[in-house]
């Protein structure tokens, strides 16, 4: 399995990865052999010691030891050669030095191959353990590597809307915009929002571009410098992101004012039902109607953790956020283009969260058995279509339900029927 260096670099990363893994497997076997050899050596020495008293015929003690010593030497030699192979493939030693020069963060050595791209599985291990700032850098590197490899190995494939519109500034990829607004049948965000505003009085939806939302949230505590992609925090700011989520930024030059500039796309929706809750929805790709993440907070909460992937301070809103994410994914699986509207309608059904009684037990507050805490009825059925219903039927049902406050079904966590 000895390949020259030039051959190695021509191979696609998965093959290189397979070779590296195989080489490592061999190395592990050799190490096991060495260990076994050491055991055998001890045994042979022991046998020799017991045989010393009685030297029988043609079998001499030193023969046994010699045999084992040969075996061990062979195993060590093989180990050394495997090691050299792996080093040549860039799996070991050289990578350590290169890595330490560039990123002195006291991190585990990832497997680095020749063109600087991080081998996927080691990268994945790293991401899980890092702080937000280094996670951003890694994501940027990985996205760059993926895009480049995709270009090399899959030249026939068109631009991928998800990765490229997030990692490249709008000015560099005019074709991305084209593919976003391609189909005339796909829903437009402003239409959806206008429909929602008219159907649901009392619920306020505000739109933000992603960078504007970040600056808005972080306020005077920290600044997100878009040109260098560095987030600088002051001593008492409280920015907490769920692990593994990279900060995406629109790399438009300069700071965006809170109002929407025409070149920036709407990426964050803030949905407020005054006095009850505030939900943050992130749209992906920006400007479309496809929600990507949702989180629910109390209207009075302040802080940098109010993001579409943040966690509220109150147990009630944490539960609501979990349910919201469940409903989001159910709706996405069902029909991607109507997800946003249905999701907003579902949120609207929470407008009487603290005053409406549960249908089952007729109380407002009830104990939730696993946590031992009191919650109001926070289960609301969402418009999940079953195979039997067609969409027209459900349209009519929708308008009926939102018109009559009394017909909104509400359940406690413990009282809800199992299929909701």
């Amino acid at each position, binding site marked *: 399995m000895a390949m020259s260096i030039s051959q190695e670099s021509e191979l696609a990363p998965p093959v290189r990865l397979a070779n590296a893994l195989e080489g490592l497997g061999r190395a592990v076997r050799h190490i096991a052999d060495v260990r076994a050899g050491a055991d055998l050596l001890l045994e042979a020495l022991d046998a020799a010691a017991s045989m010393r008293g009685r030297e029988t015929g043609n079998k001499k003690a030193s023969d046994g030891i010699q045999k084992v010593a040969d075996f061990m030497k062979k195993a060590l030699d093989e180990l050394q050669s495997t090691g050299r192979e792996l080093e040549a493939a860039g799996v070991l030693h050289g990578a350590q030095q290169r890595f330490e020069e560039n990123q002195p963060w006291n991190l585990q050595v990832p497997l680095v191959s020749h063109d600087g791209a991080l081998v996927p599985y080691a990268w994945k291990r790293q991401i899980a353990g890092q702080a937000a700032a280094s996670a951003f850098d890694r994501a940027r590197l990985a996205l760059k590597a993926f895009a480049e490899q995709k270009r090399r190995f899959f030249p026939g494939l068109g631009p991928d809307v998800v990765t490229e519109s997030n990692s490249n500034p709008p000015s560099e990829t005019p074709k991305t915009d084209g593919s976003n607004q391609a189909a005339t049948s796909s829903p437009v965000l402003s239409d959806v929002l206008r429909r929602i505003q008219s159907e649901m009085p009392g619920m306020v939806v505000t739109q933000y571009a992603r960078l504007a939302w970040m600056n808005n949230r972080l306020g005077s505590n920290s600044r997100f410098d878009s040109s260098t992609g560095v987030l600088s925090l002051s001593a008492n700011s409280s920015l907490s992101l769920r692990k593994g989520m990279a900060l995406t930024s629109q790399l438009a030059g300069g700071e965006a004012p809170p109002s929407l500039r025409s070149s920036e796309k709407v990426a964050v929706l803030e949905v407020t039902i005054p*006095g009850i809750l505030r939900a943050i929805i992130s749209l992906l790709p920006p400007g479309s109607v496809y929600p990507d993440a949702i989180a629910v907070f109390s*209207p*009075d909460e302040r802080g940098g953790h109010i993001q579409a992937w943040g966690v509220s301070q109150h147990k009630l*809103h944490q539960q609501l956020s979990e349910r919201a994410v469940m409903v989001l994914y159910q709706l996405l699986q069902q029909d991607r283009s109507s997800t946003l509207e249905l999701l907003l309608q579902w949120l609207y059904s929470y407008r009487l969260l*603290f*005053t409406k009684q549960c249908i089952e037990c007729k109380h*407002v*507050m009830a104990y939730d058995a696993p946590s*031992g805490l*009191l919650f109001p009825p926070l289960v609301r059925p969402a418009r999940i279509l079953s195979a039997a219903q067609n969409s027209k039927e459900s349209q009519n049902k929708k308008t009926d339900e939102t018109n009559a406050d009394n017909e909104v079904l509400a359940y406690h966590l413990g009282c809800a029927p199992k299929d909701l």
Partner: protein
Amino acid sequence: MPVKWLFYWQPNVGSQVSSQTLNDVFKRIDSLHATKSTRWQITASQYRPNVRDQALPVDCARELLGVTFTEAPDKIFFVLRQEHMVVEADATMQAIMERLQVYRNRLTVLFEGFQYELGDFRVKAGRAVLAPVENLRGIIMEVEYMPVSSLEQSRAAVLEFMELWQEGVILGQFVPLELNFTDFSLSDHYCWQHTALQYVSLMAFFLSQQRT
């Protein structure tokens, strides 16, 4: 700001308010696996103007009811019942009043006890005592529901919480303190001024009880 509801203990006919009741209350809260966090203390004082010369007409407020909270140590709130106002001042106001001798402290009621956290509820339980003599005037509970800032929205939640909590208690019950906040131009959105009004009303209630 999260809404706080005040409850005072009303013993059933025949039984008396005692410090044993308070211990029972603490035990009951503990049994719900609440986490005990801090001591709390709220001081409510009644100030009367210091009139040196009886002949001169008094054109200032006849009565100031001041409240201080350990949770907001840099402020003092004054309730003027006749004028239907709740005002907020810096805590140094007390020192200023001492120096100027314009108003004098006549009576002080001290509310103190322990605070517990129970999920999204924050419960303070304690006693009310008249300051110099330290005799027990009443047992109170303050229930704070963190997610909500609107009085109307929190009503059902908090009252049901107390119902559930008081199930099976025989010797008496906790009665909610219902106040007309709009009389004092306070809105539905809860803030410290509401709290000041609540504690001052409670103080007035306890003081009036003794006289009857």
